[in-house]
C-alpha cells in the first residue's frame, strides 16, 4: 500500500487538480462507443448463460457443486459488473431500455429503485463525510475513530459477520434507516412506502429461488433450495468483502461537513468546490489489485478510487485511467490507497476488531493512523 502524508492543497492546486480529472472524464466520455456496448452485452450474455446453466445443472445431483458455482457467478456478475454499474447510469447513453438505470433491477432482494437513492445520491455525493454518508458502518458498525464508542460496539465483529452472511438483506434494510428510527430522528411512517417496495421485491426473489425453481426439480426440491440459498450466500460474502475493501482499509480518510466547505456557492452559502470533491473521493476510497477476471467479478469496484471519481463512466474504463489517476495523485502528494485483496481485507478486519473496543483500552491512535489525521484541505 502506498502511504504518504496527504498534503494540504491550496485553492489554486485544488482547481488545477479538478481540471486534470475533468479532462480525463471528458476524454473517456467522448470515446464511448461500440466497444463499451459490446463489452456490457457480452457480460450480460455470459451472466444469463451461467444462470441458465446453474438452474439446469440442479437436475443432476452429482453436478450440484457445479450448479451452485454457476449460479453464484451469475448472481455476482448480475449484482456487480451489471447491476451496480448499469444502475449508476453508466450505460444510459446507449438508449437501450434493457441497460437503462431507470429500468434495470437486479437479482437481489433490495429494490434497485431504493438502492439508487441511498447509493448514487447519498453515498456518492457525501462520500465519507461523517453524519452524511450512511455507508460509514451502515448504521450498524463502528468503522471510524470519530464514531463515538458505545458498549453496543463490543459486538462489532459479530455484527460484521452477520452483515456479511445476510448482506443482500442488509442492503435492502439500509434505506429504512433503522438507526435513525431508534434514535428518534426518523418516523416509522416515513418507511411505509419503502417497506412495501422491499416486501414486493423480497416476495419475488423468494418465490423464484426458494419455491418455484426447487419445485420444478420435483423430488430434488431440498437440494435445489439449498443450492439456491448457497448461491445467494456466496454472492453475499463476495460482495461484502469487495465493498468493505472500498472504503474501510486503514489509511482511508473521513471528513467533517465543515472541512469540505471550501467555497461560497451562488446562494452565498458555503459549499464544496469540484476540486475538493475529487480530492475527498480519492482519499476516501481504496483499490484492490488483481487480474482481469478478479476486476470483472468485483464489478471493477477493485478500482473504487476511479469509480468514485467517475461514477457514471462505464466501469470497464477504470483500469485504463488508473495509472493516470495515480500519477496525478503522486504529483499532488495524495495517498493512492491500493493493495492485494488479502492485505486490504486484513486491514479491514483489524479495524472491525480494534474499533469494537473503547478508545481508552486500546490507546487513542496508533502512529499509522496519526499519519492520516484529516487536515482541513484548503480551508483557508
Amino acid at each position, binding site marked *: 500500500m502506498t502511504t504518504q502524508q496527504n498534503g494540504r492543497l491550496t485553492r489554486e492546486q485544488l482547481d488545477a487538480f479538478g481540471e486534470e480529472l475533468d479532462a480525463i*472524464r471528458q476524454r473517456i466520455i467522448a470515446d464511448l*462507443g461500440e466497444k463499451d456496448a459490446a463489452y456490457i452485452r457480452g457480460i450480460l450474455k455470459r451472466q444469463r448463460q451461467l444462470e441458465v446453466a446453474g438452474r439446469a445443472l440442479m437436475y443432476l445431483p452429482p453436478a450440484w457443486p457445479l450448479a451452485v458455482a454457476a449460479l453464484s457467478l451469475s448472481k455476482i456478475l448480475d449484482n456487480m459488473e451489471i447491476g451496480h454499474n448499469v444502475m449508476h447510469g453508466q450505460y444510459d447513453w446507449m*438508449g437501450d431500455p434493457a441497460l437503462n*438505470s431507470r429500468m434495470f433491477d437486479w437479482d437481489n432482494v433490495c429494490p434497485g429503485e431504493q438502492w439508487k*437513492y441511498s447509493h*448514487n445520491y447519498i453515498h456518492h455525493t457525501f462520500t465519507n463525510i461523517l453524519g452524511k454518508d450512511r455507508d460509514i458502518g451502515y448504521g450498524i458498525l463502528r468503522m471510524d475513530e470519530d464514531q463515538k464508542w458505545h458498549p453496543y460496539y463490543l459486538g462489532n465483529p459479530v455484527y460484521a459477520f452477520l452483515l456479511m452472511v445476510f448482506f443482500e438483506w442488509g442492503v435492502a434494510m439500509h434505506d429504512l434507516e433503522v438507526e435513525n428510527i431508534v434514535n428518534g430522528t426518523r418516523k416509522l411512517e416515513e418507511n411505509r412506502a419503502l417497506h412495501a417496495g422491499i416486501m414486493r421485491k423480497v416476495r419475488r426473489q423468494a418465490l423464484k429461488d426458494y419455491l418455484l425453481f426447487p419445485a420444478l426439480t420435483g423430488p430434488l426440491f431440498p437440494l435445489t433450495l439449498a443450492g439456491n440459498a448457497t448461491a445467494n450466500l456466496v454472492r453475499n460474502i463476495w460482495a461484502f468483502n469487495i465493498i468493505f475493501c472500498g472504503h474501510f482499509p486503514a489509511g482511508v480518510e473521513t471528513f467533517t461537513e465543515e472541512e469540505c466547505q471550501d467555497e461560497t456557492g451562488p446562494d452565498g452559502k458555503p459549499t464544496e468546490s469540484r476540486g475538493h470533491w475529487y480530492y475527498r473521493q480519492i482519499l476516501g476510497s481504496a483499490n484492490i489489485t488483481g487480474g482481469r477476471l478478479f476486476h470483472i467479478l468485483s464489478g471493477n469496484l477493485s478500482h473504487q478510487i476511479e469509480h468514485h471519481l467517475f461514477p*457514471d463512466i462505464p466501469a470497464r474504463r477504470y483500469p485504463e485511467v488508473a495509472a493516470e489517476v495515480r500519477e496525478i495523485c503522486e504529483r499532488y502528494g495524495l495517498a493512492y490507497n491500493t493493495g492485494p485483496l488479502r492485505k486490504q481485507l486484513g486491514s479491514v478486519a483489524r479495524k472491525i476488531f480494534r474499533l469494537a473496543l473503547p478508545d481508552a483500552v486500546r490507546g487513542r491512535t496508533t502512529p499509522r493512523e496519526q499519519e492520516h489525521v484529516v487536515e482541513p484541505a484548503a480551508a483557508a
Partner: protein
Amino acid sequence: MTVTERILGSRTLAALTSPHGVDRYLELVNPMWAATEVRARVSDVHRENPRSDGPEVATLTLQPTHTWRGHRAGQYVQVGVDLPGSARRLTRCFSISSAASRPGEEFTLTIRAHEEGQVSKFLVRDARPGQVLHLSQAEGDFTLPVSAATPGPHRLLMISGGSGITPVMSQLRTLLRDGYDGRAGRPVTFVHFARSAEDQIFADELAAIDAADNDVDVRIFHGDSTFSADLLGRLLPSYSRTDTWACGPAGLIELVRDAFGEDNPRLRVEFFKAPTVASGSAEGAVTFSRAGASVPNTGASILEQAEGAGLTPEFGCRMGICFSCTSRKTEGTVRNVLTGEESSQPDEDIRICVSSPVGDCSVEL
C-alpha cells in the same frame, strides 16, 4: 394464441425470470423471439422516388415478432435503431403505410430521409433485409372509425402533404382492401400535395386507384399548387362538414385548420415537428410541459430554472453523477455544462442539473 405464446406470456415464466423478464433471455437466442417486447426484421427495402434529386424515400417491409398486436389504419409506431458506429439506440415515430394489419402480420413504413434525421437517414439509406428494429405497439388515434365492410353514403376527405401521405395511404388501402369488389364503400376524396412529379411517391398506385371504379377521387397537386381554402372549396364545396383526415408538415396543417375553422370536430390532424435549430445563446423560452409553464431562458441549468419557476423536480447530487433528476427533453437543444456538448435530439433523457437550454427548449416537468 399458440401453446408457445401462452407459455411465454405466463405468470410462472415471468416469476422464474424475475426481475429481468423473459425477453432478456429469449433475445440472446434469437432476436425474433419475444414474450412482450416487439421487434421486427426488415424483409424488403424499396426506393420510392429513384428519379428525384430531393431527399430519398423508401418503403421498408417489416416482419414483426408474434407479440405485434396489429395496427389500425392511420397509426404510427416507434422505431428504435442501434446506430452502427456509435452503439447508441435512437427511437423515432413513423406512420405505417400499409393497410391495417392483424397480430404478427407484416406491414410497411414509408420513410423520407431527412438530412438532420439520423434514424430516417439510416433506415432509408443503410437498412438492409435482415436488419432487426425495436418497435413499440402501434399508437395514435389518427384512425378511421369506419370499415369498408359496412358501406355508407357519407363522404371521407383525406388531405396530405409530402411524406404525410403515409397514414392516409394506409387508410385508403385498408378501405379498398376490405371493401366489396375493391370498392371503398363510400365516396372518398383524396387530396395530396407534393414538391414535384419526381418526388411523388405511390404515383402509379394512386393513378390506378383514380382510374378504377371504386368510389375514390384522387387529386394530386405538384409544385406551386399549394393548399388553400379556395382550392379545397372548388374540389368539395361542403368540405367543412365532411369527415376529414389531414397529415403533413406543420405549415400545411396550419392552413387546413384555418380553412376548417376553430375546433371543427370533423377535422383530425397529424403533423411533423419542425426540427429546432440551436441559437447558441441564453435566448428563447424553457417550457415545462407537465406544469404547463414557460419561462424566459436565463442560461442556468434546467433544474435551477424549474425551481425558479416554482416547480419542485426530483433531484439528488446536483452535480451530474446520481441521475436522480433525469427528465425527458421533448424538443430543443441543451448543453451539458460539464462537457460543453450540445444535443438537439428530440425525446431525449437528460440530467437537468447539468443541462442548460440553448434557445427554446421543452422538458417534461
